């Protein structure tokens, strides 16, 4: 039982990271119907920015987190402006292939500059290195921190999307781009803002995964990126609460499978879940089935 609770706590930590990345996928897909393959590499860049801040600049965890989020925001918006904006009216396959290109460019460009070796984060100090005693299970403060930061960021995101003017514009554009434009919404700004939000969350996830697993490399984003996308599809792509729920479910399932069945097969299970979901309920857990129009 104790071990099971431990696994669940580990699953929640992992799920928080998946959920943060999945939010970016789901928002971008919701607004321009693009699987942003480069998103997982923005997460990787976030981890590297955090690493450089904490190792070479020697600044604390929270300023590094903010720095990683800021750099990723700028990067995300730049990618959108350079690579995706010229293709606004192109076929979806063309944009998807561009996204794969951007993803490879970020991965191997990073590898070219920082080399392929695995790097490890500096050890945490102070409060973060302690553990929290809850009854007879001990929870590292780090996991509490990951959960807290994730929840804060998600609440902020919910606030931005539901209560502010730009959030309203985002929802309008994702519903009907042409009608939104006719209502005087600046579609380009709204799309850039969506990329900015998603990239900031990915940057935060990157630095969190860096301190959690303590090792980063230029290709670290590929598998978590795919699994986060699975999480987004699982919850219903384009739906923000869906991505959160999907992220936590995928995280917990993955940890339970590696704990109780076979850790080598955990990725295969996640992809099997994806294929099952796509076949049984393509709209996802919270999605509604829409009829196809001719």
């Amino acid at each position, binding site marked *: 039982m104790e071990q099971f609770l431990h696994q669940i706590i580990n699953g929640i930590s992992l799920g928080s990271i998946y959920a943060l990345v999945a939010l970016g996928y789901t928002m971008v897909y919701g607004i321009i119907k693009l699987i942003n393959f480069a998103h997982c590499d923005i997460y990787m860049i976030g981890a590297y920015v955090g690493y450089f801040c904490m190792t070479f600049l020697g600044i604390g965890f929270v300023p590094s987190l903010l720095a990683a989020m800021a750099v990723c925001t700028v990067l995300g918006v730049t990618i959108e402006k350079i690579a995706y904006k010229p*293709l606004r009216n192109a076929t979806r396959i063309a944009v998807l292939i561009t996204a*794969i290109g951007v993803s490879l460019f970020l991965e191997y460009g990073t590898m*070219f500059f920082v080399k392929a070796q695995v790097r490890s984060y500096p050890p945490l100090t102070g409060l973060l290195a302690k553990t929290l005693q809850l009854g007879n299970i001990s929870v590292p403060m780090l996991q509490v921190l990951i959960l807290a930061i994730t929840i804060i960021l998600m609440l902020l995101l919910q606030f931005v999307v539901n209560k502010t003017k730009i959030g309203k514009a985002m929802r309008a554009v994702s519903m009907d781009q042409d009608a939104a434009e006719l209502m005087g919404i600046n579609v380009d700004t709204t799309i850039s803002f969506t990329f900015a939000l998603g990239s900031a969350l990915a940057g935060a996830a990157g630095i969190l995964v860096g301190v959690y697993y303590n090792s980063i490399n230029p290709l670290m984003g590929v598998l978590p990126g795919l699994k986060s996308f699975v999480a987004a599809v699982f919850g219903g792509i384009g739906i923000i609460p869906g991505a959160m729920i999907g992220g936590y479910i995928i995280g917990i399932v993955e940890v339970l499978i590696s704990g109780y069945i076979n850790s080598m097969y955990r990725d295969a299970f996640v*992809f099997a879940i994806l294929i099952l979901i796509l076949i049984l309920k393509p709209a996802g857990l919270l999605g509604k089935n829409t009829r196809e129009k001719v």
Partner: protein
Amino acid sequence: MKKLAETMRNTKSWTKLLLLVLTYVIIQLLILFGIIQDFQQITLTTICINIILAVSLNLITGFTGQFSLGHAGFMSIGAYTCALITMRMPTIPGFILGLVAGAVAAAVVGILVGLPTLRLRGDYLAIATLGMSEIIRIVFLNLNITNGAAGLSGIPQFVNWPWLFVFTAGTILLIVNFLKSSHGRACISIREDEIAAEAMGINTTKYKVTAFAIGAFCAGIAGALYASYFFFIKPTTFNFQKSVDVLVMVVLGGMGSVSGSVLAAILLALISTFLQSFSELRMVIYSLILIIIMIFRPQGLMGSKELSLSMLSKLGSKFSFRKGRV
């Protein structure tokens, strides 16, 4: 008149056959005289395998319009099946058996995966095929018979230029002739407009699965050739990167152009030979090619045009006409 057209068609196919035989003989002679040495033969093999992969993926993605990111998965099935069979039967018939078994196994998996997933469209299909090829890779990584992450080594080597030529030319002929048939036209109509094709009475699922199975079959052959030539395979050889490599060839050559795929496969194999010692730079260049092509020439080098003999002769007459005027 009718007779004339028939003779013309006959001469055309004869010229094509002649060109094919000429290509074979010239390269065979170059190998015999030692002008193409072992090192260049590796490039030659890579080119042939790339052509098979690119042309077969073009059938799925370029002509039928089904975006697949799982070609490496089919390739790995062919490679592992052929390797396991030839390691137990290290003879020529054993190799042929392994090759056929590999291709058939890939096609069977293609059908099994295709039947449910081909109902999905566009990028959902891409993600499902990507997931499928990852599952295949993870299974090979964990089975005992495939020796896990270390992979299989010491696979008997049978592949040489005649084998490569037969299978490369065979794949191109198979796919070109398939596309000329009514089945091929049905596949193209699905790409143009799936709903309209369905309304015209085309069984879209059947043709999508057919294209998928033929593509997987050819990828299986490519994998078998790869295993037998390089006599060493491991699961990471067939990762997501490999699928993207093939996709780059199809996109660069032009989705919907067989000759474009062939050209792009040759071009990219040469580029990667030159950049062999800088693997990171190679991927950076690949990715830039992808982005730049998509932004400036989304239809690829050839678009949906084919490089044909009549096109060449037209080009030739244009030049001679100009000369004549000067």
